[in-house]
């Protein structure tokens, strides 16, 4: 609950002015609705009284009828403004929440982020944000508007009709309304939360079944997996039914409350009329206002029954952002070797032994080294380690003469750029993608780097730097995507450039051309390149072969594998 309040506060603070506008409009709708019914009721009854008394001519019809028309039109207008402004405020608030989430994720380790790329984890995040859109729209704003309306209506009734009736109608509706909604909340939160969890289980079970569909059939687990889905579904439906019953019960209770308030207004008004302390027209106001209060109360039900779902989502979202710790310290790079590795070893998560034999390597400015080795031998992991994304298992890494760990993040990123194997582009224009690399990007710089990666003609044909790519950078071929990511990395003009299979998906001629251009564009940069292509190795000044230790080392000499050729001979 505290978390939800924090989120509500975050949403509100995102744009307090937009929220206030929405709240004011929501309040205007309810107030004008109550006033319209009250005034109409008073007007008709007062007119009838005047008519009966034969003083119809003296009755001022124009002000009340103008009031009725004003309130009627004003309410329609206010309704329009309310819908528009509350949606606007919600969109702004959710945008701010999403930005907060994005900012938080910036702090996560790169390994975690890479794993999160699987669709499941990311859709979970967006589903949670979506679940929270009702928090402002259906709970906070309507509740505030209802509360103020009830108080306002109470004051108006006190002034126009009398304290007793005001207390009976406004406070009665307020107290019992809060009571009903409180009980609704109390009864629905647990099942709503369980329903959401069951739904999550259903999602998980279907993903599990259909992702490994052939396996499941193969192993004869289909009826079992199906039963799992059916169980989760049945549980979700049971809980949803539970929530619906509570919701319906709340609706029933609130309707009865309004009927009771109306009856009380009629009874108390009648008493006052009979006692001669109140004229019938004013007495009628009580009833009409009581009926209008239904509009303030009823919509709150939905927000309250959704609260369980919101709480569940809120428990996974932390709206607080840690204050960025400014790193005042900086290091002074030393001349000489840009990168020096001494006996460096790297392990993969969950593994005991290093991926490759200890590696020693030195790169001076202008050096171009290709790392080779079997797939999975740890080339990419080593580049990750040098880029400071994870730690080494052993050995020493010096960057421009200073231990890697001493480099502050910002300075490290200026000094070293890694083009990972699966570099992703973002949705947006070509220019936006390139601009991720530097603040001062201009068109000349952009075209120059596109020429370096032999992409200028492609981009020209696609419509220039303003050409729009889909989410994830769709719209370019695999090789083009690769080169645009490469261009982005080159824009950084780092002292040490780490490239993980930079020309994957390019034909040999283009690959050679691109590498030659890079060399010409960054003559002083030291380049370390994980590679498995002859075209890439050809441009390198040195080739380092990594000895994969990997898995599957047989400890029992009897288990050693005969070479495949031997097998073939044995068969023929």
């Amino acid at each position, binding site marked *: 609950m505290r978390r939800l309040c924090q989120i509500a506060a975050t949403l509100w603070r995102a744009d307090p002015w937009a929220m206030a506008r929405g709240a004011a409009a929501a309040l205007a709708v309810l107030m004008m609705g109550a006033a319209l019914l009250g005034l109409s009721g008073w007007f008709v009854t007062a007119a009838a009284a005047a008519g009966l008394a034969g003083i*119809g001519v003296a009755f001022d019809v124009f002000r009340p009828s103008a009031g009725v028309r004003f309130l009627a039109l004003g309410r329609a207008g206010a309704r329009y403004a309310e819908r528009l402004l509350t949606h606007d405020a919600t969109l702004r608030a959710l945008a701010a929440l999403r930005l907060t989430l994005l900012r938080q994720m910036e702090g996560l380790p790169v390994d975690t982020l890479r794993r999160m790329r699987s669709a499941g984890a990311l859709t979970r995040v967006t589903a949670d944000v979506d679940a929270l859109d009702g928090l402002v729209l259906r709970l906070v704003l309507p509740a505030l508007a209802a509360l103020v309306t009830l108080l306002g209506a109470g004051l108006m009734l006190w002034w126009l009709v009398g304290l007793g009736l005001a207390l009976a109608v406004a406070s009665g509706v307020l107290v019992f309304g809060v009571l009903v909604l409180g009980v609704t909340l109390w009864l629905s939160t647990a099942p709503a939360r369980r329903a959401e969890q069951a739904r999550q289980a259903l999602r998980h079970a279907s993903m599990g079944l259909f992702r490994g569909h052939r396996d499941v059939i193969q192993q004869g687990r289909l009826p079992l997996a199906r039963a799992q889905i059916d169980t989760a579904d049945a549980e979700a439906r049971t809980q949803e039914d539970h929530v619906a019953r509570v919701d319906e019960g709340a609706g029933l209770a609130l309707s*009865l409350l309004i009927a009771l308030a109306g009856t009380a207004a009629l009874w108390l008004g009648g008493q006052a009329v009979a006692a001669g302390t109140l004229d019938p027209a004013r007495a009628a106001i009580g009833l009409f206002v009581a009926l209008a209060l239904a509009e303030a109360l009823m919509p709150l039900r939905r927000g309250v029954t959704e609260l369980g779902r919101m709480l569940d989502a809120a428990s996974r979202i932390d709206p607080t952002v840690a204050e960025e710790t400014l790193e005042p310290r900086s290091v002074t790079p030393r001349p000489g070797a840009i990168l020096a590795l001494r006996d460096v070893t790297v392990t993969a998560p969950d593994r*005991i032994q290093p991926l490759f034999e200890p590696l020693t390597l030195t790169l001076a400015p202008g050096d171009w080294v290709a790392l080779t080795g079997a797939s999975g031998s740890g080339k990419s992991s080593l580049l990750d380690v040098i880029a400071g994304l994870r730690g080494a298992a052993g050995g020493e890494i010096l960057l421009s003469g200073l231990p890697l760990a001493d480099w502050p993040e910002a300075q490290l990123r200026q000094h070293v750029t890694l083009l990972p194997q699966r570099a992703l582009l973002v949705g947006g224009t070509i220019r936006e993608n390139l601009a991720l690399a530097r603040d001062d990007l201009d068109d000349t710089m952009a075209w120059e780097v596109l020429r370096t990666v032999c992409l200028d003609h492609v981009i020209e044909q696609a419509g220039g730097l303003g050409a729009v790519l889909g989410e994830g950078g769709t719209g370019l071929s695999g090789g083009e995507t690769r080169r645009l990511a490469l261009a982005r990395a080159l824009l950084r003009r780092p002292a040490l450039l780490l490239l993980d299979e930079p020309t994957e998906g390019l034909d040999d001629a283009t690959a050679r051309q691109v590498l030659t251009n890079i060399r010409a564009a960054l003559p002083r940069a030291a380049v370390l390149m994980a590679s498995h292509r002859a075209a890439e190795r050809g441009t390198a000044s040195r080739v380092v072969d990594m000895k994969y230790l990997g*898995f599957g080392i047989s400890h029992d000499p009897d288990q050693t594998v005969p070479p495949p050729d031997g097998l073939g001979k044995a068969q023929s």
Partner: protein
Amino acid sequence: MTTADRSDAAPRGRMARAGALRVLGDLMWPVQAAAVAAVIGGWLAGQGTGLGWLALFLGAGALRAGLSQLSGRIAFAEGQAVVEAERRRLLDLLTLRPGRISSAEVAALLADKISLLAPELTRYRIAMTRVRVVPLVLLALVASQSWAAALVLLVAGPLIPVFMALIGMAAKEASAAQMIEVGAVNQVLIDRIAALPDVRLLGGFDRARAGFEGRVEALRARTMAVLRIAFLSSTVLELFAALGMAMIAVYVGFSLLGEIRFGTWGAPLTAGQGVFVLLLVPEFFQPLRDLAAAWHDRAAAAAVRDEVAALHADQGAPILGRGARGRRGAGAPSLVLCGGVARGIALPGITLSAGQSLAVTGPSGAGKSTLLDVLAGLLPLERGTLAVDGAALDHTTADGWRARLAFVPQVVHVPDVTLGAYLDPLATGVDPAEALAKAEAGGIVAALRDGLGTRLGETGAGVSGGEARRLALARAFVAGADVILADEPTADLDTDTGAKVIAALRRAQKDGAIVIAATHDPALIVALDGAAPMPGGVS
């Protein structure tokens, strides 16, 4: 089909009942209005408050609330029943047809989208029933008191079809706008989170955040532009309701003052009649407003129905058998495929018995995977015969055949479970050590910090392609499979790793298993007993 008929016919009956109850509840309002009119009329006549009228007001109000609640209950139960039936139908269809739809799509459909069928019943259909009855009855009641007041409503009446068209258009635009908003902003967020590792490497967190803000703000502006128009159309409805209310209040007021002397049936309007008419006006428009609010539910349900119908229309053949744990055939395995055609692809003739192996060759696209699917009973033959263990492979024998068979796909799906659970999915408790050694996979487990307790898959330790294939083989050995189908088991592996996979397959064959591998790796082809090129292809 019969389920579909039932699930359609039943709601029609019960939904009619739910609709009728709700209409009956709505019609309690004129009773309450009459009671209020009588009370206020009494006040004006100096008669005091009639307790009977108060009781009627409260009683009718309670009845109204009760009927509405009952109607809601029936409609909700029906909505649930329809959703459940549709979900079951869809699962029946999809679970027996692997590879038809992505797992993310299935999960979204089953867990979220199908549920959208319910609000159409609980909200839209009920509102539709009310629109057909309630305004007409209230109009008649108003007309019985004052034809002029009824005329005001009647002016709005013929406009109702216009309203409906407007509402329909507005809702369409509104839902389109919502789609843009929700879908697009979520996509942008996912896009940016996915790109975070790259953004970090480019030192561009600030720039990326600014870009995200700009995009989301642009989307908000676009959405609001659409909503401004969409909400305007439903405001027209509000406006008519408000104007109707204002005009009738003024008309009634002037009549009661004696300033207006037309519009009634002879005698001038009494105070009670005036109050009665006034109270009916908002309820005349209410069902229309509810229908407008529910229009979106119908559009959403229609979209889901289209999606589901497309899946049902595009029916491929189901797998043979039920995908259940079958009784495993006794004795040594055997397999004879003769004159087979599946998915329009001619399959090679194959005769294999225990301890024999075969490489199926051919360029990609020649149907090698189709052949493996046929052999596993996942795809029925269009022509030809397939006999396994001496009997035709059909619905009765397929589950038993699969119980002795293991399939090693090119891309092994590693679920999010522990390695131990992965190797022994049926929890038989067999010690996997021997099987791991046989599959050349013992070292993989030895190198993991938590051994068999290590979690694999998306959230756990990554294994390389070759390692995953050896683990899949180990799993086949744990299950005691003696028929092994492998799809490109050595593709994309370096020579050493490939040799290990080949050695594991050879070892299985030596122990009496049938081994069939789809491949174009010369080292593997030469390691197996023979090669069968796909008839359409070149080996």
